[in-house]
């Protein structure tokens, strides 16, 4: 058995499982946020379960519309608050940050656990060696009632990244390269295992960036090698880290990936740095390093959104807040920001943005004709100063 099958077998109490087996697996952590949670609660009430299977294993995080962006979104907060009061499940409602970051900081992700989340980026938990499965509201309700999830053991694919990334190339460039290589449905229904010394030696922050975007290649599970034997995997791809140049996902799909140099000079009007993909302190340090003592272009609106309250505190301690403000950026409260297209920086049809987030589908961040380019915090910050897309290769030492 490979590592994915081993974890599932152990949780399900079976000696052996193989890809394609249908089984019911106990769930260690159930997560939802303010735009998926309310529907899950409605479905849970329709089920009519006597109780939540384990209130200590269920957590809701208000992160998408916080503070509320509409009357309807406030109503969604109140549904979560009522349910929290009635059942005792955990609720993070004080602007603690994006669900996947908050869960990581609170130590909710544990190696070998089964995590079920009503958010497609639940795969972020794979950075910590959890098997994390994204679901919709009804399936989340079923899990809250039963404490188990019915699943088909997925086929696994191994991506081994060896060597060292070059200066100006980051975890974001690597995952964009992988998504571009395999396509938006390259791993549909599969588990992807990220391994190799380039990945194993990364910080947890970087591993989260990698695992976070596994869904952008369609994966059911994104799992980062925790140093244990991976076992036999049918499909394997080896990537040499030092071959990579800065990458950028062009409109209108995360798999429309090009080299930054191919689109260098494209005029831009907005830069977004944040999200569950790239809103952590190391990301903000990279961006602040570029922006120190500089001003962003007059043509650009720049929004910085730390992924959590804890990161916002670190930003202040490290004096990054001042660097961003002095450069002309707007600093928003921890949360999802404009990433999912409801508030805090929506684009009109004429706008072009560089964003460190994870999706650039039509309408994702506002008008459906608005163009969103997905890139690393480094590319985003350099581009904010220039007012056009910049390849860091041209402003950093580069050995090639």
């Amino acid at each position, binding site marked *: 058995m490979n590592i994915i099958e081993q974890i599932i077998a152990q949780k399900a109490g079976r000696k052996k499982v193989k890809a394609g087996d*249908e089984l019911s697996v106990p769930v260690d952590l159930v997560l939802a946020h303010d*735009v*998926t949670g*309310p*529907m899950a*609660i*409605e*479905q849970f*009430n*329709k*089920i*009519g*379960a*006597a*109780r939540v299977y384990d209130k200590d294993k269920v957590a809701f995080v208000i992160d*998408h*519309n916080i503070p509320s*962006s*509409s009357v*309807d*979104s406030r*109503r*969604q907060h109140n*549904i979560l608050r*009522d349910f929290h009061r009635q059942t005792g499940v955990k609720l993070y409602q004080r602007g603690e940050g994006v669900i996947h970051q908050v869960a990581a900081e609170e130590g909710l992700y544990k190696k070998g656990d089964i995590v079920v*989340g*009503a*958010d*497609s980026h*639940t795969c972020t938990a794979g950075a910590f060696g959890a098997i994390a499965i*994204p*679901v*919709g*509201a*009804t*399936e989340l*309700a*079923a899990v809250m*009632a*039963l404490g188990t999830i*019915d699943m*088909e053991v997925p086929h696994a694919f191994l991506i081994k990244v060896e060597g060292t990334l070059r200066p100006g190339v980051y975890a974001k460039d690597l995952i964009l390269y992988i998504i571009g290589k395999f396509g*938006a*449905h390259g791993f*549909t*229904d599969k588990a992807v295992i990220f391994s190799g010394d380039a990945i194993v030696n990364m910080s947890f922050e970087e591993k989260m960036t990698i695992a976070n975007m596994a869904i952008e290649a*369609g994966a*059911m599970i994104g799992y980062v090698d925790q140093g244990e034997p991976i076992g036999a995997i049918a499909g394997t791809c080896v990537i040499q880290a030092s071959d990579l140049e800065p990458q950028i996902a062009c409109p209108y*799909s995360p798999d429309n990936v090009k080299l930054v140099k191919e689109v260098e000079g494209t005029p831009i009007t907005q830069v977004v740095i944040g999200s569950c993909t790239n809103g952590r302190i190391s990301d903000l340090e990279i961006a602040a390093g570029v922006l120190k003592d500089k001003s962003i272009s007059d043509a650009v609106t720049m929004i910085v959104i730390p992924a959590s309250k804890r990161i916002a505190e670190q930003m202040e301690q490290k004096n990054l807040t001042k660097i961003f403000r002095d450069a002309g950026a707007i600093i928003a409260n921890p949360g999802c920001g404009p990433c*999912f*297209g*409801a508030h805090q920086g929506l684009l009109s049809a004429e706008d072009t943005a560089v964003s460190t987030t994870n*999706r650039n*589908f*039509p*309408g*994702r961040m506002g008008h*459906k004709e608005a163009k969103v380019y997905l890139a690393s915090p480094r590319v985003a910050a350099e581009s904010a100063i220039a007012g056009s897309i910049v390849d860091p290769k041209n402003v950093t030492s580069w050995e090639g």
Partner: protein
Amino acid sequence: MEKIKGRVFFLGDNIDTDQILPGYAMSVPLNELKKYALKGSQIPDFAEKVSPGDVIIGGKNFGCGSSREQAPVALKDSGVGAVVAATFAMIFRKNSVNIGLPAISSGCTERMKEEIDEGDYVEVDLESGTLLHLESGRTYPLNKFSEPASATLKAGGLIDRVRNILRERGELIDRRETQY
């Protein structure tokens, strides 16, 4: 299962959930979601055009992106009887089945696009796994549902399946009247 009969709407590859149900509409009350069905797509006025039983035929990776169940709910509530696509993104496919909206893959979607005109009537037979083009009488094979998906659809969705399990365990109370 009953046959589904309606007109055809065609969509392309990689129809993501932002196109099916835009992010800003995720907070509207559930009974209003149908107004936003496919609002972000190439058919932004879909909600006014659709009639009960109509069938969407898409390409590869239909429903990719977000886990928002609001997307299939908007389609189902707007009247869509079934979604046929070359392939589906996993979460969308499961969400659809869980709410009782058949999401069926088929290896023939390219041929359907060539041989069927938008707006033509088709009949989807889930039992036999076929799509019938009424005008020409041609049939196109659809892939079979997995056993669990088939059981969920027959139960009318996942909620009723879970209710049956809890009833057997004696852990069911009736809270259906709870309103939010």
